[in-house]
């Protein structure tokens, strides 16, 4: 067994010297960090919605797409009408992306989700329908072709800390955004009144109402917040990729795997899972082909879930 794996390793790495390999691994590691940031931002929104409310939102990817299109629109508007401010449009776009996804999420909760809280598997079907409708709307409005936002100068270029190392600035920016947002969400969830409201509501909706919490509004805002974070993920995504109507849906299964792998409801678990999956995929991608890396990672995650069905980090409370 060890002989075989040694042989495989040799075949994988044999072509490189150790120094080359080091650089390659660091580069792939940074590529993985971009992927990690997107996974984390996507998974964060889903951890709020699925982890807390047990709602499976198959349209989560479309909320990300919405955020990305919002950014494209902002970039276009600022380029056309306010070129002087173009340098700083991106933070504004981020807020707009969040707002757009948040408002739509709020409306979706009112019109669809609130009827399905008692049937979690059905939310899956209903939101699949929603994702079809949203995708088609994007296609009708923005066209089926890929578009992208124009990046301000400060987001372009790269940083070269050492010979042969080339770390793109947009990737670092992406990482920064996701770290900040994660911290903000964590603080909001565990140390604020709003977070307490959310946790009490998901634990016992009826009782939360009977102690004076407006549970309907809480549900609505929680769902909308999750969607809003997906919108920010979309905005961040435009710094590294171009956007099409189906861009978000490509991440939906990965995102689910991250949330489930990390342990639904645990933000720390989500971070670890996003990091592990992104890095594994990115490094394997270099050694194998891209799609096979995906297969390996998916199977590995499924394997780990068999051993720990509750995910990496699960809270244990006596029932």
């Amino acid at each position: 067994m060890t002989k075989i794996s040694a042989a495989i390793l040799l075949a994988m790495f044999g072509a490189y010297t150790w120094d080359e390999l080091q650089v390659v691994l660091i580069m792939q590691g940074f590529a993985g960090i971009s992927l990690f940031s997107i996974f984390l931002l996507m998974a964060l929104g889903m951890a709020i919605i699925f982890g807390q409310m047990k709602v499976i939102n198959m349209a989560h990817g479309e909320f990300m797409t919405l955020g990305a299109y919002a950014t494209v629109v902002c970039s276009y508007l600022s380029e056309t009408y306010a070129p002087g401010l173009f340098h700083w449009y991106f933070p504004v776009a981020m807020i707009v992306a969040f707002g757009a996804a948040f408002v739509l999420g709020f409306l979706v909760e009112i019109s669809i989700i609130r009827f399905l809280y008692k049937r979690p598997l059905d939310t899956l079907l209903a939101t699949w329908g929603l994702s079809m409708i949203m995708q088609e709307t994007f296609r009708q409005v923005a066209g089926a072709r890929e578009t992208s936002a124009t990046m301000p100068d400060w987001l372009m270029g790269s940083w070269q800390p050492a010979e042969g190392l080339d770390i793109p600035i947009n990737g670092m920016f992406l990482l920064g955004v996701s770290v900040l947002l994660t911290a903000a969400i964590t603080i909001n969830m565990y140390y604020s009144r709003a977070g307490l409201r959310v946790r009490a509501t998901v634990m016992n909706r009826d009782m939360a109402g009977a102690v004076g919490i407006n549970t309907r509004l809480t549900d609505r805002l929680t769902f909308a917040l999750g969607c809003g974070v997906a919108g920010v993920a979309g905005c961040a995504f435009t710094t590294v990729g171009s956007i099409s109507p189906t861009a978000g849906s490509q991440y939906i299964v990965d995102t689910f795997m991250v949330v489930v792998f990390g342990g639904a409801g645990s933000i720390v678990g989500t971070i670890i899972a996003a990091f592990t999956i992104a890095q594994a995929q990115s490094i394997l991608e270099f050694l194998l082909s891209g799609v096979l890396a995906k297969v390996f990672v998916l199977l590995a995650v499924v394997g780990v879930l068999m051993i720990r069905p509750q995910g990496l980090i699960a809270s244990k409370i006596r029932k």
Partner: protein
Amino acid sequence: MLEVKNLCVSYGESIIIRDLSFSVAKNETLAIMGRNGMGKTTLMKSMIGMIRARSGSITVDGKDVAKLDSFQRVKAGLGFVPQGRQIFSALTVEENIRTGLETAKVRKIEDWVYKTFPVLDEMKNRKGGNLSGGQQQQLAIARALVSGPKVLLLDEPTEGIQPSIIKDIARTLNELKRLRDLTVVVSEQVLSFTLEIADRLIVIESGAIVHEDPRSSVDEAVISRYLSV
């Protein structure tokens, strides 16, 4: 202070509460007695709004709350201690109490809470789910009281509680009523406990009032008969 008029509540097709009316004066304690399945819990839940009444009115301090959501009823002055206590088990004791502050005028837990329930002070940072039944009951009462209710509803507060603590609960309730200027409605099956706290008793059977007594002239034999059979 609290007036229930012509209340009807149903689950699907079966009517649980039929045309029920009663009123409770300020600072009075009313006990609603009756066997299991006679509609006590349904009545309590419909007063706090966990179940919607089909018709009738529920007036708290002059305001009809029958059409409102639970949280609005809490705002209007109702406090609720449910059957089985229903503590948020994954929240700490302190967080559990803080959930009750949502509609309160003050935004922090005042000193009297922990003075009244010293055991909760000791266990502040424990998870609510790891408390004993008696401790949870105190927590549930504290959680309901911090919102500053005018009327406190308690649904079977002695159920599943060890006999030695039942007396403590009665003592605490009587004390709180005096200190916090409360009107209390309590549903019970245990007559001895009821007699320690109630000013007036009503007995319901199949969702309707069949008997009423002020405490001064309670006929224990009659009520026991309603409770048994």
